[in-house]
């Protein structure tokens, strides 16, 4: 992968506290799994961004290499990779996700709360 592409991804991950790389956009998801992930974070209630990589094979490959994770969507919270809803679901159940998100938004500019 090119260093530029990797840097571009790292910049995006740093920019958004909750970032979903998926197929399609928030308004027009083009995959059931991406839609499911959008629903998931809508329910959680904290701001999140969805970036469409469906048509960008080089970026998809770079993301797969960076995460050692073969599928989309891919979810990053506070700069760290957390998989997809298959892994976020159990994290939500155990309470870990709540801690991770609270840490991510533990900034005076953001109100930390539930829902």
């Amino acid at each position, binding site marked *: 992968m090119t260093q530029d592409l990797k840097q571009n991804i790292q910049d995006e991950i740093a920019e958004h506290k909750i970032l979903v790389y998926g*197929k399609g956009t928030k308004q027009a998801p*083009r*995959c*059931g*799994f991406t*839609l*499911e992930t959008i*629903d*998931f974070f809508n*329910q*959680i209630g904290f701001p999140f961004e969805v970036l469409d990589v*469906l048509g960008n*094979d080089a970026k*998809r*490959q770079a*993301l*797969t290499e960076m995460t*050692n*994770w*073969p*599928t*989309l*969507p891919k979810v990053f919270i506070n700069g760290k*990779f*957390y*998989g997809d*809803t*298959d*892994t976020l*679901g*159990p*994290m*939500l*159940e155990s*309470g870990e*996700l*709540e801690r991770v998100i609270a840490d991510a938004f533990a900034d005076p500019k953001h109100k930390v709360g*539930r*829902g």
Partner: protein
Amino acid sequence: MLLQSIYIYFIGKRHAEASTCPCGTWETIRDTETKSRIMITHEDIERLIRTALPDARVQTYDRTGTSDHYNVTVTSSAFSGKPLLDQHRMIYAALSEALKDGRLHAVELKTEAEK
């Protein structure tokens, strides 16, 4: 807790919407290459996973009735002490051939460490 009730809602929802998924999630093949309707059986999935994890107990659910979108639940002692993301990576690795050649279009994974 609010988040847990959201999770229960979410789990109930995902199965209902599963059949609407228009795309595979595997990142090493292009969408246009996944159109073929080659199928895989429960026995095939179980065999692939047990090749990597001999003590694995494997449950599958053909969620679209087309024998290529499966919910897969794996229980194994090999997961003990491993982070959830790594547990899922182990199963993706075991299933990689079937996912790459299109027999398996998409999976929803659940892993549990044998107690």
